[in-house]
């Protein structure tokens, strides 16, 4: 368990964007692993199995939440989302260059958690879970075009947050 707990927790935390929920999901993943211990202990792909289960449980958790509350809180947001203007923002080359690696990693994780779910999910599935656009569209039950648009917007939003926070961090590191 110790060998995989960081990987499982990271997968869940980046997808659900909440550490407490991610810990609950990670716990569920390891309980499922315990139930299937007989197969897993002799398998060379235990890590892949755990990662897949962590991803699926995280997505199930998100979809369950979405179904439960959509009626009251997300319909209006989804409608307005269609009219959202295109975002154009490039990450300046040197924005995080002067920032310590640990600080940079923390900034990126924080920026990821601040992204709205509709942007964070496809971005994480693409960059961390290494799924193709088609696989993401299938997993999220949305169109291919929407996946591409959401990932593009997520990158722009992430770049913006990183630029803002990166400059702040660099400034604070330079400060006496």
């Amino acid at each position, binding site marked *: *368990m*110790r060998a995989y*707990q*960081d*990987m*499982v*927790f*990271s997968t869940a*935390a*980046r997808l659900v964007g*909440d*550490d407490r929920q991610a*810990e609950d999901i*990670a*716990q569920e993943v*390891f*309980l499922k692993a*315990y139930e299937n211990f007989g197969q897993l202990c002799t398998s060379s792909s235990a890590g892949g199995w755990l990662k897949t289960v962590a991803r699926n449980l995280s997505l199930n958790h998100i979809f369950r939440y979405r179904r*439960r*509350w959509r*009626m*009251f*809180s997300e319909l209006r947001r989804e409608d307005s989302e269609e009219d959202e203007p295109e975002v*154009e*923002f*490039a*990450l300046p*080359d040197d924005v*995080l260059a002067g920032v310590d690696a640990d600080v*940079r*990693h923390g900034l*990126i*994780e924080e920026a990821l958690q601040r992204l709205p779910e509709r942007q964070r999910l496809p971005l994480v599935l693409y*960059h*961390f879970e290494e799924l193709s656009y088609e696989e993401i569209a299938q997993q999220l039950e949305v169109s291919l075009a929407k996946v591409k648009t959401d990932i*593009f917007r997520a*990158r*722009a939003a*992430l*770049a913006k947050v*990183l630029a803002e926070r990166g400059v702040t961090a660099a400034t604070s590191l330079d400060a006496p």
Partner: protein
Amino acid sequence: MSPDRNRQDELERQLTRALRDQPTRRAPSTLERRVLAQIESGAAAIGWRRGFAHWPLAARVGFFVASVGVVKVALLLAMWLATPLDSPAVSVQLPSQISWLQTLLVAIGSIVRTVPSVWVHAGLAVLAIMYVALFGIGASAYRMVRVAH
């Protein structure tokens, strides 16, 4: 290639590099303890807490028989409440220790029979509206707490 396309490609390249270098996050120190505690409690859980499918056969049969008994009693009570007061079925004499139960049931039955059906339907409608309203308030509160968090 358009300047916009170039910017998008450059952004993708930079973020891919930044995210690829991102290390896995450290799991909370409580995770391992939680999993082990859950496994121990699961192993020690008594049968009825592990779901009906895991119960012993005798317990499942007994539970089924008891459930049928409860349903039968509920049906008898419903029939009794629906029976007119002057029916011979109501005049059955119960032991004196539980005669108050008969009185109570007869009283409830007479109230149920005298309430107009419109009131019953209106009451059900009010209950349904209250349920939906509370669900909405709960959803909004949850949403606010989640956004605040």
